[in-house]
């Protein structure tokens, strides 16, 4: 019964990106980059394929530069654990337009499904909350998902929602990995061609 109730990562990410409007999205390396691509490639998705631990900080710089736009970071538990200090940095800076979704399967999915610290009790929402994030919660069941998505898409930030998901491996959906292309495409979509190609 318990096992059957587990959330599936692709459903969860599809739900948080539905009717995305002018949402800006940054994804962490590995499965969350594929999850965002599986919903549909978008010029305002910036996919990380490396630099592990950097998804939240990229989101912070973007949120500070674009205070009127909602910025959603979608990353995994392993990626977030490598950048824990960023939670403190974000909490101190308090960007009201930044939300982080941690898709938490409690494992390193890219490297052979070794356990991460979140499976051993480390509570990422708790760390964010005690650092000073305004909204934090952990979503474990279908009936809690709506509330989590509402926080991610609209609650005053900084917000962090951990979504506990199953370890199921989904079909690989690989977005472009040419970093230069991803950067320029994002800037062109956000800033317009003229400013995108100038400093």
């Amino acid at each position, binding site marked *: 019964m318990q096992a059957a109730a587990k959330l599936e990562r692709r459903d969860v990410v599809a739900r948080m990106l539905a009717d995305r409007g002018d949402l*800006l999205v*940054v994804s962490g390396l590995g499965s969350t980059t594929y999850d965002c691509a599986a919903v549909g490639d978008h010029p305002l998705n*910036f996919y*990380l*394929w*490396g*630099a*592990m*631990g*950097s*998804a*939240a*900080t*990229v*989101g*912070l*710089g*973007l*949120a*500070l*530069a*674009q205070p009127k736009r909602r910025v959603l970071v979608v990353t995994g538990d392993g990626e977030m654990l490598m*950048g824990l*200090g*960023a939670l*403190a*940095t974000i909490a*101190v*800076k308090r960007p009201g337009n930044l939300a982080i979704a941690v898709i938490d399967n409690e494992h390193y999915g890219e490297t052979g499904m070794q356990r991460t610290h979140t499976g051993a009790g480390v509570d990422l929402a708790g760390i964010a909350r005690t650092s000073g994030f305004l909204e934090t919660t952990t979503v474990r069941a279908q009936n809690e998902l709506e509330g989590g998505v509402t926080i991610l898409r609209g609650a005053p930030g900084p917000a962090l929602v951990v979504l506990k998901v199953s370890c199921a491996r989904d079909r690989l959906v690989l977005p472009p990995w040419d*970093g*230069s292309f*991803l*950067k320029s495409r*994002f*800037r062109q979509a*956000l*800033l317009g061609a003229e*400013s995108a190609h100038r*400093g």
Partner: protein
Amino acid sequence: MADDRQTWPVQIFRKFKEFNIRQVTYVPDAGHAQLIELCESADDMQSIVLTAEQEGIGILAGAWLGGERGVLLMQSSGVGNCVNTFSLAKVCGFPLLIIVTMRGEWGELNPWQIPMGQITADVLRLTGAVVYEVTEPQFAASAVEAAARIAFNGGLTAAVLLSQRMLGTKLFKD
């Protein structure tokens, strides 16, 4: 000497203004103290204190995606913390302007600073950064200008290293 008010931080700050730097990310260092104060008090700049230097690389990548320029201030030990994260700037061609105050480089008293201080410039070059080493305070601002132009126009990582010869050496005395 390090405690005296210097003119080079003011000159570097003016270059930041000239280049429209909006996000100033840093892990503090005594050598950067005066420059940090100037940036903190500027209305058109946001200062972002980091827990570790590599956070600045992500933040400045995000800033650039959002149309803003920034700079990363750190001590030489921080360069070692950044190595893998430099790949984000390099693979995407994000401009990354870094100002490094040196430790373990010239007359250092603390032996623990020496291993990283002695390889800082080489590590930066290995990662593909353009490196300007400054030993005289009167050349600091022009090096920052050169680095900023190369970083922002070329989508490159450019680092200015400020030598202990100009900063003075921490003497561990009250």
